């Protein structure tokens, strides 16, 4: 059982370490060397050089930092905001609950990435706006899950008892509801991290996310598509990076779900 998760977990750890190293190492991902333009992978540079003669390896590491920091910030915001609204509205019930359900329905019926594209287009490109756009799209999942879970345990004896004893609402929410619903929310968070990484890459690919010269896996693929026929390493390297990270996060999420024994 332990061996099964080892590889995905190792790869995730690898990318996290890369993301942290990007802050420390003296990397020069924007160093342009004209005589190395589109040079393929070699012993010195395992991933080769891009269309401006910049080292792709170093850009991948910077890209890991961008992707992971965007994903973590977005998931944190969505987790807190979504759970807050989900629990509150389910707890209060009535019109609040109906309003939340209506909001969730509207957001779910609209394709997420399309909404993110519209928002990023309206807000303008840039790191902060990407985070805002993706957070607006991602909070719904948490909210829906938190609401359903809260509804299902709202009438349990220990909560009725706490209520009867005059415990304050927020204490009930924090101490008696949240601990019981946190496990599925954490599983949701892992899947959301994976989808946010893809969404950020997608927005950057469309030119709406991270702006050059800052490195992001999405912009790297975007630059690479122009040279796909002559320098496939320009798209393969960031492509594999996204694939490995997202796949491993999803595998880890599945595994966590199995272990925490949560049913749909």
């Amino acid at each position: 059982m332990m061996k099964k998760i080892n590889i995905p977990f190792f790869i995730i750890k690898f990318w996290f370490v890369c993301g942290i190293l990007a802050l420390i190492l003296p990397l020069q991902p924007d160093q342009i060397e004209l005589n190395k333009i589109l040079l393929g992978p070699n012993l010195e540079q395992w991933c080769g050089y891009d269309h401006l003669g910049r080292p792709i390896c170093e850009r991948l590491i910077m890209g890991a930092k961008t992707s992971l920091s965007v994903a973590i910030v977005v998931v944190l915001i969505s987790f807190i905001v979504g759970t807050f609204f989900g629990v509150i509205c389910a707890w209060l019930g009535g019109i609040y609950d109906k309003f939340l359900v209506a909001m969730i329905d509207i957001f779910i019926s609209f394709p997420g990435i399309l909404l993110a594209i519209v928002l990023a287009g309206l807000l303008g490109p840039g790191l902060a706006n990407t985070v805002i756009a993706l957070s607006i799209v991602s909070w719904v999942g948490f909210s829906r899950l938190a609401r359903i879970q809260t509804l299902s345990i709202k009438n349990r004896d220990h909560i009725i008892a706490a209520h009867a004893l005059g415990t304050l609402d927020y204490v009930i929410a924090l101490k008696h509801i949240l601990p019981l619903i946190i496990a599925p929310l954490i599983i949701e968070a892992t899947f959301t991290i994976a989808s946010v990484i893809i969404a950020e890459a997608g927005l950057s690919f469309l030119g709406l996310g991270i702006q050059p010269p800052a490195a992001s896996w999405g912009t790297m693929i975007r630059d690479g598509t122009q040279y796909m026929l002559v320098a496939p390493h320009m798209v393969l390297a960031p492509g594999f990076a996204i694939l490995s990270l997202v796949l491993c996060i999803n595998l880890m999420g599945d595994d966590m779900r199995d272990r925490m024994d949560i049913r749909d």
Partner: protein
Amino acid sequence: MRTEKKISQTKYLLILYVIFFQFFISSCKDSNRETIAVGLSTSPITLDPRYATDAISYRITRLLYESLVDFDEEFRVKPQLADWQKISPTHYRFSLRKNLKEFHNGSPLTSEDVRATYQSVLNPEEISPHKGSIDMIKSIHAVDPNTIDFKLFYADPLFPGRLVIGILPKELISKKHNFSRQPIGNGPMKIISFKNDKHLKLKRLDDNKIIEFITLKDPIVRVLKLLRGEIDLIRGNLPPEIVSWLAEKDSIKVKKKKGSTFTYLGFNMEDPLTGNYYIRSAIAHAIDRKSIIRHVMGKSARQAEALLPPEHWAGNSDLVSLDYNPDKSRRLLAQAGYNDSSPLRIIYKISNDPFRLRLATIIQSQLKSVGIEVEIRSYDWGTFYGDIKEGRFQMYSLSWVGLKIPDIFYYIFHSKSIPPHGANRGRLNDYNVDLILELAKFEASLDKQALYYKDLQKYLLDILPYIPLWYEDNILVSKSDIKGYKLNTDGNFDSLRYVTKNN
């Protein structure tokens, strides 16, 4: 989780559908296409020669219409529809040649059509962008069906070279016919259809061969379609690396020829930073054009020192090249009061074309190595071009395509040509430049005019309102069964008049 599953199911259905559709399309594709298909990066904006200003429109209208005069390889004027004689400095007489081709609607081309065409360009109600270049015309008079007189307000020895607008039939002009989509001229090709502004079909009248122009914005799509045989040739607008890659393929031919498309860095002369000569000169000496041409342009360009290439009759071949000299550049910056601790910061505007962006990023890094901090701002074409015309920039780069008549210098550098009156976008206001331009304008002999323009180009290289970068080559990439395409300096599509395809 149930919704997620549903989504993935739809996704699979969609993929299946796309695969199925792909098969359907490829089975429908006729492999023995008789036509010659050209892949374009942008569609022609108009097929009306009175309004065509962009390169693609200009190149295609040349196939549909003929004009009174044309240019040879040295950019000298030569007769096309008509020969001319100069009766006085302000009076030119054009005689139409015998046995001219009829218009595509069957009516003959006469001097009345010429008169109607030019009158409609000069008509104040029509807003033709070419009006400025022929506004010295005082009157146009059709003497007889084959002779036409132009009288001018002032003497202009360059006048015949200005009559390059394709001739339209008079009766359709008066009916306000939509030439921009249903062109009717007397050129070697006739329109068949123009679907969705993306697929233009022309018929070559000599041999009834169909020539197609298909707009494919993405360079990779254009290349893949060429390899698959859906198009037969591509003219330029491909990343140089792709061109070298294609050159190694057996089924593909690549030809290059020196071009005259002039790429430059322009400055705002009214800005306190870029208005400073030391700063402009420092930037000029910090750009390593040789290695950019070698490594980035795939050697498909040559260094430029002036607006007109040296082979132009008014071009100057004795200009001293701006050398790459970072030390000199640092010295000049120090003279202007900048060094590494207080670096010069400049904003550099460009369009959002990926290749231009790539070049700009390289120039940015070269300037950084001498201590100039450049911020690149790239905009969609409309915003960018608007900013440039309004003078909202410090530094920008653009290209001039198809320059022929040397009075372009007046249009670009005279202090009276600040937009909207001309293209002096950098707001250059230099007494000497104005003086040389005025002298050249009123000089009767073309040889003496050429001397003035040669001097002017030397002077411009000294004061640097533009940093000349390079002339881009004209490139042809075609299937190897395409025969007889000859590239020319101008970069037009004239070879399509006779190019053949062996099946």
